[in-house]
């Protein structure tokens, strides 16, 4: 059992009369990068909410390391859509937010963050307010805030969705490099299939709402993928297969 870190089995969730998740099962092994893709409104983000405790599953089981996760076990570091940086905090105080919430002293929190500032390309911007940073930098700050909590697993909710295409590409390359180095266990929710193919070991494709896992794609491509010509070509064909699959399951015209 220990080779699976996170396991969802038959998770269902409804908001009143609206059935959001009908039957979601997935698993993530330690050090794996797993993505969830699916049509917009399918309930991708809801899966993360179930994990962070912001939403309650109505049926099904969730196991983390073989046990049901508790509300305050501190298992997941969550990075929300957009960056959710606090405009009233300087970058340094934004990235230490999670440590502050965990009652880690300011000096210790800053020491931990400062060791990573350079790697995240934020050196020299510690004293800036988020408004003064570019979209890519804000996103890197948000990711730093997430990883510095040193929780067993990262939950990334469309982290690059708000960026322009070029910046997004640069961020994907960067995060690929970072992942190769740190081997975070990560669950990524995205609507960008190319992004999912480039970054993931495995992709869960959701059906339109109510969501269930329509198909699972293993991506056995060697890394790094984003800089490699042949990997890119093979990734493109996988991307095409996922897109075909997505459109064939959607009844009626695409919206």
């Amino acid at each position, binding site marked *: 059992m220990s080779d699976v870190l996170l396991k969802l089995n038959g998770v269902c969730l409804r908001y009143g009369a609206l059935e959001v998740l009908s039957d979601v099962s997935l698993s993530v092994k330690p050090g794996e990068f797993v993505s969830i893709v699916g049509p917009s409104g399918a309930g991708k983000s809801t899966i993360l*909410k179930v994990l*962070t*405790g*912001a939403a309650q599953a109505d049926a099904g089981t969730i196991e983390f390391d073989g046990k049901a996760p508790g509300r*305050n076990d*501190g298992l*997941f*570091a*969550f990075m*929300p*859509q*957009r960056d*959710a940086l*606090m*405009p*009233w905090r300087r970058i340094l105080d934004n990235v230490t*937010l*999670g440590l*502050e*919430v*965990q009652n880690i002293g300011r000096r210790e929190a800053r020491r931990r963050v400062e060791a990573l500032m350079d790697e995240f390309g934020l050196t020299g911007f510690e004293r800036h*307010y*988020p*408004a*003064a940073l570019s979209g890519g930098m804000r996103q890197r700050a948000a990711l730093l805030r997430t990883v510095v*909590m040193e929780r067993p697993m990262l*939950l990334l909710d469309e982290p690059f969705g708000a960026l322009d295409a070029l910046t997004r590409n640069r961020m994907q390359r960067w995060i690929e490099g970072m992942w190769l180095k740190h081997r975070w266990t990560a669950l990524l929710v995205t609507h960008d299939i190319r992004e999912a193919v480039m970054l993931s070991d495995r992709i869960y494709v959701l059906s339109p709402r109510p969501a269930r896992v329509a198909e699972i794609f293993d991506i056995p491509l060697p890394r790094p993928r984003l800089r490699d010509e042949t990997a890119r070509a093979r990734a493109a064909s996988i991307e095409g297969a996922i897109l075909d699959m997505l459109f064939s399951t959607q009844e009626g015209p695409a919206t």
Partner: protein
Amino acid sequence: MTLLQKRSAAPQPAMRRRWFKRAAPAAIALAGVFAFWECYARLSGISALTLPPPSQVVAQAWAHRQDLLANAIPTLRATLFGFCLSLAAAFLLSVVVDFSTILRRALFPVFIISQTLPLVAIAPLVVLWFGFGLTPKILLVALVTFFPMLVALAQGYAATEKELEELLASMGASRWKRFWLARLPSAMPYLFAGLRISITYAVVGAIFAEYAGAAEGLGIYILNAKNNFRSGLVLAAVGVSSLLTLALFGLTIICQRFLVPWTAGSAAADHQRGGQ
């Protein structure tokens, strides 16, 4: 880029010019009003006892500057004490109603009713209850100023980005921590908007309270001047109260710059607000 270079090369003249551009229309409008008033008072043949020209008001204000100052200080004191009480009350009540839905439902109607009371009728009663000292003034100032701040705070809390609270919850933050780290700072721009509205009522509230009964203060000064048919002095005291309000208004803007610098109308903050 060129703009940036220009700005950094010669910040002083450029800033002065921008400031002048913003202030000039207001100054011209104000000068126009006073010029019209001066001409009308001098040319229409109206008695200076009824409507003195502004030049005469200024001259009388200067002649009675010591009296005016001596009476402005108690008014300012009542205003500031009342305002501090009001701010403290608004903050405490805003926290209470933010944490408890039942108390919000119970208290908000009471607050709203408190704002429907006619000050003209209430002020003499409050003086009757609390005497001619500082207390009734403080209470009346608080009564007229606390509501805009309370509403502003409540609105500010409600305007907190949902994602921020979700993020904090995912980090394991308690309700208190979420309030302290997200809701309260989010409400700060709203609080200052409410503060600016309140501060314009505050001096008027204090003068009203003094009008209803006081030993000293601009309100009682105005009442006495009126009873002695000294329109010039009435207007001089009105001008002083106006200046007091403007000074306090300016003070809130300076406070905002220092206490919540990320909101203080900086280009970056405006840009961000526009971009979201």
